[in-house]
């Protein structure tokens, strides 16, 4: 079957990029088809609600499963492995790939950490001679960041930092007790600390969405719509215009092109009844996630695009890169026998440390930021494991049984402080994804094969992270837990893909020979095909990518509208 009248735009994927494109295009009066591989989702729907559940409402008490790896109450439907949708990794390389299958995609469970890239982040090659510069700079994107701040809402503070720009922030929440200990440690260590920047509504931003009620459960998706999810903030309002048709449970196979090499629509499959479906459109906006969009392009082989759509320069899938990560935790004796009160706060940290050593001489390029964790969390599966292990720090015997264990649990409850680092890696041509010639998914679409290795830059950065975390945790009064990972474990460096910030597979640039899209996310090889996810990133700063995806997607959408007005599309 196929639709008769072409849509003005077909948007593939409903996460941050697809949601923004759908909203911006529909708002401009375009007729939009939104194609999402998973089901419709609304956290306010009782049948889908996991927020405010108690652990005993789950038979596994919130433990993760293969179907919900981040926990039984986590909002994200998807995971590291999907039934019927394999991917492979080439010999001696490593990649983890998280895929969401639901309306709103990964915005349903992300950490809401919303950091603008700074001026330096677009021009890293100018600074360290590695990788490439973006074709655009902070000045090009600043107006769009400003608009995103006001539309979506983000709390934070204007600190006048050179590479962590100010914004239109909502006021931040007050730090929790363990965060005050972190602040104390950071002051002692001479390392800066500021209120965090999260897209959670500490104040009302419009009459439709609610205000945060401090349940710490953003990862379960908010029924009050008080945090940013693509579905709640962008897609429902877009659908309310009456100009959007949502095709849920629909997988896009390829972009169809005509004799002139331009796109005519997309071929998809309805996952529920396995029926093929063709949608006609004047433009196609790919926002299926960096790797999924690359996969669709590589699979869009035609007489005009013999190596896949947009791949005449051989760059689709290339420069795949993820954030680096490492973490460490400490026991804070001063937090033993705490006063117990409700300190849930927002779903994430109230304070953080942005990169502070831009001018230092280091044995690695680029920086990282620090995310702070701890506090009196709601018990779920795993709570009470090794319940009195901290007794060894007090010279007491670990183990035992009986009612004394209750005193141990209460005594050590909320006495842990943890840090997670997220850093910038250097994009490599040799790190990439391609179609695996030997493997298809259950829809017959070739699977992706990944090639990815960290370089010395990332490994050295991880060593620096470990030293920093030790210094800070000890300065906060903490007793370090676990061992310090050394070179044999790449200093605790996370695996490629594990931080779920994979970007770069359809990077933008002015030269069609070395990039896939132009500076507006428009394919060099087909002017009515656009990429609105993080595939266009030339480099992924140490900032979480979502805010930049939103700004770029909005900018791309306005470009589409403008080009249509000028009859160029």
């Amino acid at each position, binding site marked *: 079957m196929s639709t008769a009248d072409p849509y003005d735009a077909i948007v593939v994927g409903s996460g941050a990029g697809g949601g923004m494109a759908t909203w911006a295009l529909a708002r401009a009066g375009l007729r939009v088809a939104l194609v999402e591989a998973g*089901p419709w989702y609304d956290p306010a729907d009782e*049948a889908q609600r*996991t927020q*405010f*559940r*108690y*652990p*005993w*409402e*789950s*038979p596994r*008490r919130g*433990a993760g*499963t293969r*179907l919900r790896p981040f926990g*039984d*109450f986590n909002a994200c439907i998807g995971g590291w492995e999907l039934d019927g949708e394999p991917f492979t990794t080439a010999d001696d390389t490593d990649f983890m790939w998280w895929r969401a299958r639901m309306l709103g995609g990964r915005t349903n469970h992300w950490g809401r950490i919303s950091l603008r890239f700074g001026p330096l982040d677009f021009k890293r090659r100018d600074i360290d001679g590695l990788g490439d510069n973006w074709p655009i700079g902070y000045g090009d994107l600043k107006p769009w960041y400003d608009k995103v701040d006001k539309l979506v*809402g983000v*709390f934070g*503070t*204007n600190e006048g930092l050179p590479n962590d720009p*100010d914004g*239109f922030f909502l*006021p931040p929440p*007050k*730090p929790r007790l363990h965060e*005050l*200990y972190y*602040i104390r440690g950071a002051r002692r260590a001479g390392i800066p600390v500021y209120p965090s920047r999260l897209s959670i509504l500490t*104040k*009302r*931003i*419009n*009459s439709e969405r609610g*205000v945060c009620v401090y*349940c*710490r459960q953003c990862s379960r998706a908010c029924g009050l719509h008080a945090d940013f999810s693509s579905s709640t903030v962008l897609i429902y309002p877009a659908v309310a215009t009456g100009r959007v048709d949502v095709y849920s449970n629909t997988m896009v196979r390829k972009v169809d092109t005509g004799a002139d090499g331009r796109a005519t629509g997309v071929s998809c499959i309805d996952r529920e009844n396995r029926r093929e479906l063709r949608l006609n459109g004047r433009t196609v906006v790919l926002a299926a996630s960096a790797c999924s969009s690359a996969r669709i392009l590589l699979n869009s082989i035609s007489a005009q695009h013999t190596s896949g759509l947009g791949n005449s320069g051989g760059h689709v899938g290339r420069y795949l890169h993820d954030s680096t990560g490492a973490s460490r935790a400490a026991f804070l004796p*001063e937090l033993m026998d705490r*006063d*117990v*009160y*409700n300190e*849930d706060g927002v779903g994430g940290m109230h304070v953080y440390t942005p990169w502070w050593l831009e001018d230092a001489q280091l044995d690695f390029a680029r920086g990282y930021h620090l995310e702070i964790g701890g506090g*009196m969390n709601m*018990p779920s*599966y795993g*709570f*009470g*494991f*090794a*319940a009195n292990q901290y007794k060894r720090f007090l010279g007491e015997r*670990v*183990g035992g*049984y*009986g*009612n004394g264990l*209750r005193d141990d*649990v*209460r005594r050590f*409850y909320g006495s842990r402080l943890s840090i997670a680092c997220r850093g910038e890696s250097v994009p490599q041509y040799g790190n990439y994804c391609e179609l695996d010639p030997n493997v298809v998914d259950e829809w017959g679409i070739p699977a992706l094969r990944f090639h990815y290795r960290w370089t010395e830059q990332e490994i050295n950065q991880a060593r620096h992270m470990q030293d920093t975390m030790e210094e800070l945790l000890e300065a906060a009064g903490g007793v370090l837990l676990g061992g310090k990972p050394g070179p044999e474990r790449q200093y605790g460096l996370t695996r490629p893909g594990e931080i779920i910030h994979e970007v770069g597979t359809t990077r933008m640039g002015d030269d069609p020979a070395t990039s896939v899209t132009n500076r507006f996310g428009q394919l060099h090889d087909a002017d009515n095909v656009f990429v609105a996810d993080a595939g266009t990133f030339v480099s992924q700063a140490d900032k979480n990518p979502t805010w930049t995806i939103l700004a770029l997607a909005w900018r791309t959408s306005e470009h589409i509208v403008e080009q249509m007005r000028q009859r160029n599309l």
Partner: protein
Amino acid sequence: MNKTSRREALKSLLLAPLAAGVASATGCATGGAVNWNELPREYSYGRTEAERQRDRELFAETYFSEHELVTIAVLCDIILPSEHPNGGALDAGLPDFVEFIVKDRESLKLPVRGGIAWLDSYAIGEFGADFANIGEAQRLAICDRIAWPDAEDPALRPGIRFFSLMRDLTLTGYYTTEHGFRDLGYQGNVANVWDGVPEQTLQRHGMRYEPEWLEKCVDQSRRDIIASWDDDMNPTS
């Protein structure tokens, strides 16, 4: 077998003399039957169809024998006794939780089954009957030897590992119920307005908010006023 008849079976199993093969055992008094609060077998909390299907399969499967389940119950009861105002492991339905969680997390199956077998073997060697069928003082004597990971007897290592696992499962299974929440005094998971650490707690820890930091934080009395800014990014609401 429905739950009631299963319970009856447990009772009779507990009161029965030992299994064949250890006929020389003395068969000590058990102190009566073991009972626990049953946990629900149906849940509804935003599941996909694939998840519902998986949970149906898990609930349909029986992994532990009645003897194993009784031993788990006896052990959980020792780890967190019911003689407490906030209830104990059996009040929190621990045996049902352990049964479910080892089916859900397959890697736990063997450590628990093998651990019980080790415990029975050790109990027979020491006291002539398996763990569920020796006297309370004898059980506690065994627990005293395997409840402390720093114990030096290498022959006890499997028992120590098993006891540590059962302590973990018991505490996690207890503190994720209403009994455990009461015991912990947990106060979260409700809509509220966070406005900082209570003053008396700050004082107790010798902490204070930096005034310039506090100045930037949300004024919760104005949280319902729609946000606005001037052109220089300064909040004006």
